[in-house]
């Protein structure tokens, strides 16, 4: 009798474990950011020419935020990234609505040397918020980027509230901005 029980137990345990695995779906996406609820790196990087009249040759995020403390949305993109083209209009719209309350920064990364392509991207969507150039991808590594596009929602105190993997939609942006500005 005990033997039969052992058989049942072993089978049930394995079955349970693998059933969980099946139900959970793809294992790789949605790894939580290691920086969740910790402070995100500040950075100073060169901006594209169209933003230079307002910000100068580089954008110093730390200075911007110390001048006027507010939440920040950092969006990482690359010129070869299809979904980035899909989400750009939504980001532009969200910036137009909430750009006063939240600092929007776009970061072109994993795109070493691709200045012309980056310029084309920014012009194509007529992005009003500053886009900086992370040529050696050091900033994306600092942020623990898994891929592009990724968008980081940073509270006014500099800590990470939420990281979104994949393209963002306007609805989600609105929702997260509400959260960011509520506190």
């Amino acid at each position, binding site marked *: 009798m005990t033997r039969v029980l052992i058989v049942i137990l072993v089978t049930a345990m394995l079955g349970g474990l693998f059933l969980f695995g099946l139900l959970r779906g793809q294992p790789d996406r949605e790894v939580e950011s290691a920086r969740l609820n910790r402070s995100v790196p500040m950075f100073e990087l060169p901006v594209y020419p169209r933003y230079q009249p307002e910000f100068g040759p580089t954008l110093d995020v730390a200075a911007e935020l110390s001048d006027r403390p507010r939440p920040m949305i950092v969006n990482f993109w690359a010129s070869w990234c299809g979904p980035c083209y899909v989400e750009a209009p939504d980001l532009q719209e969200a910036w137009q609505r909430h750009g006063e309350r939240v600092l929007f920064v776009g970061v072109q990364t994993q795109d070493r040397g691709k200045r012309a392509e980056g310029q084309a991207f920014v012009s194509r969507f007529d992005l009003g918020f500053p886009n900086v150039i992370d040529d050696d*991808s050091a900033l994306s590594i600092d942020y*623990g980027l898994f891929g592009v596009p990724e968008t980081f929602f940073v509270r006014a105190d500099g800590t990470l509230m939420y990281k979104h993997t994949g393209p963002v939609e306007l609805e989600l942006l609105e929702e997260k901005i509400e959260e960011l500005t509520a506190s």
Partner: protein
Amino acid sequence: MTLTSPRSTGRGRPVVLLRVVRAAVLAAAAALVAIAPAQEAATAPGAAVELQSRVFDITRKLRCPTCVSESVADSNAAIAIEMRNQVQSQLEDGRSETEILAFFQERYGDWVLLEPPRRGVHLLVWWLPGIALAAGAGGLGLLMVRWTRNARREGTEAPPDDDDLARVRAALGEKEPS
């Protein structure tokens, strides 16, 4: 009388010759086995290659963030190439492997380390195989003790089982299986 060991047939020329031949063959085999790999393996690379090799050694322990189950050393993804560059410049700055791995672990979490760190829940994966081996060896030892006792108690012949009787009947007259 068995014709097995050279010793039992007494000393003689052929026996000594056999021994010498055997010794020579074995020594030659051992040396040959060692020489080719050793010579190959021990070529020293130059300093620049040395640095690159270290980059690859370290990035072999990092998981490529955008790939499915590839290391940063092996992947050609954009982020992997940039991470290798990052590691190289950190090495040039003089940081150690431990520091570099900690750098990435801080930013990506434990997930990015291909070698599970030796703390927390990861200890399970490091310890369980050893425990399983010890348990297996221990179990085997116990079984062997019991079986050796069986042999001494019951004598060295176990009674034949039905399978064997059937086989003997069937096999009578045919050649012995090897």
